[in-house]
């Protein structure tokens, strides 16, 4: 093949007058745009590679974060993808696991938003600005929750032998599960269940997944949600009873299976019945595809009383993954 040898390609190209003279004059200089695009891209490459904060800059802003973060408030990073840098550099004191894997932000009275590149957290939309500071590439905003609730009790925080009992009820049979710490850590893996933690209620005679303990699942946006693992048995209900709960006006919570499990929508639905002092006050029914779904149950006459609260979990066809969290407010 001797294309270029026989005739230079430019020489045999036809330059048909496809556009008018005026237009041609206007676009006369287009060839210069091409190298210009190259140089602009070079500049943009240099800018982009430096626009997000470095590890050192995250370290540098740590003391300001600690000084602005009020006790009981949550630190939120915008954009969310940068959160691991914050967890690394701010540490568990500012970003404890409990906050990072929160059910939602509604229970916090205040938040400290650490943002850069002009990003804002959608989670905090509508919160009122109390204070704003800039430090290097960061903007730090102290925000107040306009509808901050008074949380009287967090059920996840109290899942231990001192506050809770767990049992399996099937018909007239009831079999207690034993709080074990340390239990063998089980579960996990990609596509598998979440971790069955080292401190959990172990139900003798049941497979290890039929147990109750605090774990973390992924929601439909792959966000972490700390919750009470409560896989029901093949038959009957798995009952978690919290003793002497100071109640607010309602019980609010969320339930899900974990996105990776739930996304195929092949599991059976599950039901969480909520009982106060032995009386059912409401239930949450979860169907595959509901993902991390909130529920709210008014306490009615039980409001602001102290009473035992039961979460009774059951599912058809031998059960499914169930993880829920709840508080009273």
């Amino acid at each position, binding site marked *: *093949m001797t*294309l*270029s*040898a*026989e005739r230079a*390609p*430019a020489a*045999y*190209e*036809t330059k*048909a007058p*496809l556009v008018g003279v005026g237009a041609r004059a206007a676009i006369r*200089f*287009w*060839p*210069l745009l*091409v*190298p*210009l*695009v*190259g*140089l602009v*891209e070079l500049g*943009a*490459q240099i800018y*982009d*590679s430096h*626009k*997000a904060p*470095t*590890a050192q800059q995250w370290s540098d802003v740590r003391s300001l974060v600690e000084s602005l973060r009020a006790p009981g408030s949550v630190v939120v990073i915008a*954009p969310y*993808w*940068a959160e*691991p*840098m914050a*967890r*690394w550099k701010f*540490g*568990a004191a500012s970003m404890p*696991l409990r906050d*990072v*894997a929160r059910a939602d932000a509604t229970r916090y009275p205040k938040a400290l938003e650490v943002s850069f*590149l002009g990003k804002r957290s959608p989670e905090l939309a509508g919160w009122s600005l109390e204070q704003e500071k800039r430090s290097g590439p960061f903007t730090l905003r102290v925000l107040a929750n306009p509808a901050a609730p008074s949380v009287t009790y967090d059920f996840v925080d109290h899942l231990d032998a001192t506050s809770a009992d767990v049992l399996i009820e099937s018909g007239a049979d009831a079999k207690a599960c034993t709080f074990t710490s340390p239990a063998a*850590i089980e*579960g*996990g*893996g990609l596509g598998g269940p*979440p*971790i069955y933690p*080292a401190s959990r209620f172990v139900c003798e005679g049941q497979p290890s997944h039929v147990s109750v303990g605090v*774990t*973390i699942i*992924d929601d439909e946006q*792959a966000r*972490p949600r700390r919750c009470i693992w409560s896989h029901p048995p093949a038959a009957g209900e798995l009952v978690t009873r919290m003793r002497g709960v100071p109640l607010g006006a309602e019980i609010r919570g969320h339930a899900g299976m*974990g*996105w*990776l499990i739930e*996304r195929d929508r092949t599991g059976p639905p599950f039901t969480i019945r909520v009982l106060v002092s032995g009386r059912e006050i409401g239930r949450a029914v979860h169907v595959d595809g509901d993902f991390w779904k909130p529920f709210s149950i008014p306490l009615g006459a039980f409001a602001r009383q102290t009473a035992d609260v039961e979460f009774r979990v059951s599912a058809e066809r031998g059960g499914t993954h169930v993880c829920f969290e709840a508080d009273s407010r």
Partner: protein
Amino acid sequence: MKARAEKSYAADHLIGFLLAIGYLVILVKTAHGIGYARDEGFYFRAASAYADWFERLMTDWKAATQQAVVDGYWSNNHEHPGLVKMLFGLSWHYLHRKVPLFAEEGTSFRFGGMCFAAASLWLIHIWGARARSRSAGLVAALAFALMPRIFYHAHLDCFDVPIAFMWTFCAYAYWRSLARPGLKWAIVTGVAFGLALDTKHNSWFLPPAFVVHTLLSRGASFGRGLGRGQIRVPLSLVAMATLGPLVFFAAWPWIWFDTIDRLNGYASFHLHHDYYNIVYLGQTYWKPPMPRSYVWVMTAATVPTITLVLFVTGMASRLRAHAGRLFSKSAKRPFDPGSTDLLWAIGIGIQYAPWILSTSTPIFGGTKHWFTAYPFLCLFAGAGFEVVFERVRELLRTSRLSVLPGWALETLLGFAVLSAPLAETIHSHPWGLSNYTPLVGGAPGAASLGLNRQFWGFTTGAVTDWLNEHATLGRSVFIHDTAYDSWEMLRRDGRLAPHVQAAGPYVQGSSIALYQHEEHMETIEYQIWTVYGTASPAYVGAYDGVPIIYVYEQAPK
């Protein structure tokens, strides 16, 4: 004229050779920084088995060709053909086991793949030079070399860059055969097709591509031939149909026995491949329908924009030239028996078609599955550069800059269009798959858009220093998405100290845990939190501020 042409191509071959050698040296020198990807681990194992078989073949070919022996070595990773893995294995056998040329064992396997990448530059340059001009060939080859994703994959002992070379080489041989009807290039085409079949299944697209090209470029003469009861099929297509399968069969011992069943198994594996998870614009896809925009957006987000601009310029100018000839009776037709532009366009179109035409084509693998289109894209980009150069020279003719010699202008323009790809490629190393172009705001912009940050667990290579320091004896490491063989190669290379041990497949039982971020794998990170009781990493490997790999450490009990 002829003598001058041959001399010109000899110089171009020299340029191509120097490009190839230069690229090969750069790849070898930079290989250390890139950790081993999942698939590399599987191919290390297969390649060393095939190399052992080869050694046995050399000493006792009769025994080595018995089915039990062949199956013993070649059943390993038989879902892919063996040629390229064989080359990885021979590279390892001769350049590491026999002559310790490479300091790291992993590099000796990878060297086989790197040679394909280097040869690609030579091939692209010579094709561009023959079809357009020397500068077009040079810009095309460099544009290919300076695609960050190509640069990353060019290091690996995987098939994606090798098949890009083999596909292009087969197309080049076919193109040459059209210009020089005769046996030589037809045979080369047939053999190249067989070798491409032995490289990766993208090669299945070669016959339809060439048939379509033949029909479109020679339809009229076909019609006339049919009228006379004659069918003139290019000899290269005949060679592909005859020599191709023979070479394919000969170079893959696995199909020497139970051939039909094994070929069925091979085809079935790829036609019914699992859908792996991949995030795209914030949504993880794991089953059809896959988004049709994926190939467009990912190409735009990962190929340097100036390369795409040159490609569009080149494509448009060629279209304009062809359109001009269609509508102008006086226009001269160039001598182009290979219908070059059509072949290049088909070379791109047929690679993208599976994702454009079907929402069932898997999108995992990022951009690597359509790498076979990139040499053609770059050849058009080279043509675009040529057009820009001519037009700029024309513009400057009446200015004071007209004193600028042509070579100086070409160099300046070359710098302008290649500096960004060069900067992006240098900066992408060793993170490779985490790199995105400024069009989407670089890595931070891509993270905000919800584009994939990595796959294959190769970024463990970025935390080896931390592990060597902190993973003391008795503190085993959960290695997450890194394949065990890939991890072991880091140890065999000495990149991981002997005391750094991998834990089992679950987080529990480990003291240190790696998490290579992929959206659908977040659940693994949460498992680490639950077991270790903390959400605070001990170290984060970040690229341009974007967290890529996190290391967790369990507090001593």
